[in-house]
């Protein structure tokens, strides 16, 4: 895990991309990791089924916040239906390195919230699918 905290992770943690709120989100969702209290909110603008803009808001550890930050970059311009289908690999490719089982929930929180927004109800945990 100590290898995990690379510069680009810390950069996303300290300077999260697409952080904040949208004026008028079309879809949105929010959840917390009950094991640690980390929260993530995702707000999306969708046009013609395609993600035009996204902002996230939250607080938590470097893993959850950096994962969420990177995800927002991944999904811009993606079809909403494809967002709904994203698997945990999408996150793991972003963060680039193995994460211990307990911290997996941290890494997956952003994706879970994003998928919840895309399908309009609480998505299951990507690491439990």
């Amino acid at each position, binding site marked *: 895990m100590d290898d995990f*905290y690379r510069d680009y992770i810390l950069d996303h943690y300290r300077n999260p991309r697409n952080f904040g709120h949208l004026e008028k989100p079309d879809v949105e969702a929010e959840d917390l990791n009950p*094991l640690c209290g980390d929260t993530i909110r995702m707000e999306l603008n969708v046009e013609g089924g395609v993600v035009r803009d996204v902002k996230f808001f939250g607080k938590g550890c470097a893993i959850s916040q950096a994962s969420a930050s990177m995800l927002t970059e991944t999904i811009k311009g993606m079809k909403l239906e494809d967002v709904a289908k994203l698997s945990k690999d999408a996150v793991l490719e972003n963060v680039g390195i193995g994460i*211990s089982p307990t911290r997996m929930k941290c890494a997956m929180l952003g994706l879970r919230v994003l998928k919840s927004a895309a399908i309009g109800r609480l998505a299951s945990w990507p690491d439990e699918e």
Partner: protein
Amino acid sequence: MTQTLRTPALDPKLARIIADFPILARPTSRGKRLVYLDSAATSQKPRAVIQALVDYYEQYNANIHRGVYEIAERATAEFEAARGKLARFINADMHEIIWVRNATEAINLVAYTWGSTNLRAGDAILLTELEHHSDLVPWQALAQRTGAQLRFIPADERGVLVLDDLDALLDGCKLVAIGHVSNTLGTIAPLDAVIPRAHAAGAVVVVDGAQGAPHLRVDVKALDADFYAFSGHKMLGPTGIGVLYGKRALLQAMPPFDYGGDMIHRVEYRDATFAEPPWKFEAGTSNIADAIAFGVATDYLENVGMDWIREHERALTAYAFERLSEFEPRGLAIYGPRDPAATSGVISFNFADVHPHDLASILDTEGVCIRAGHHCTMPLMNKMGWSATARASFYLYNSEADVDALAAGLEKASKVFKV
């Protein structure tokens, strides 16, 4: 980073204690010494406790109370002897010791039985702002069932309870539930001040002793607590066993909680009468092995001495304050009282903008086990404005070397996170 397995200056008594805990001699997968600083979550177990389980299962495993053969008699005798040990440990009568799974179940038992029969709409339940979820949510549920209202003794910004309005809070109050020691901040509650005033106001007092019984000498008679709940796993005992102490007269008047085998007196198809306390509250086959091993855990604690443990933890906490303060210029913030005499071996802190979970993960790579998060006190975290804290907690087997390992881990985190 290489760490020596024992510091040379180790007190011989402490060295003997450490040697009694097999897990502490096992290096982590990264080859580090295990530095266990999470005893507030659960404690490690000495060899004698583990051996008690093995002995039970290898020598006299049998169901209790009804068997007339040799191993059943031995199992019954050891099981009830363990009850006696627990009674002595907190200065109670053995008929006042109810075996439960854990402190959480003990508190729920009181809520379902004494609570449901004694609380009415409009009555008040008084808690404190420091309570663990296990001493909060059962009362929320009871309040919803009965229409009673919840009130809270406030905590100041260092986590010290403020008793200024206690009389007003106690007005109309039927039940007070209060943690002996805060698991998040280590603060010791002023039970001596609260319990007599609660009684004077006509309230029954439930003490959540999950963090009290492991660390402080508990005398339920001197405290005059009506109920005292605690868990074996936090005080060298196995998981799955705990105790609810209740004053005998209260226990006698309460309806049962779980119903079934072993808690009855006479059963017909449509009706049943119940056994005397404590058996009235122990339905079905008890956790026999773990109860016996919990008794052995209290033997161990008595043998070391609760006063020795208290002083050892106080000294360690003082040393930890010293070592942690080195990091204050880099943004380390310690929560709760800074006075080791006011707390019980728990230190909550945050280190600059390093999230506690990340800090814990980095410390883990060095073999140092701390807890990170809300510590089952979400409302307290919100009130204080902390999204999470890192928590190091000490017990009899911890040493100054463990504190040094914590400090070394913080150095590493400081490097990784560039703070």
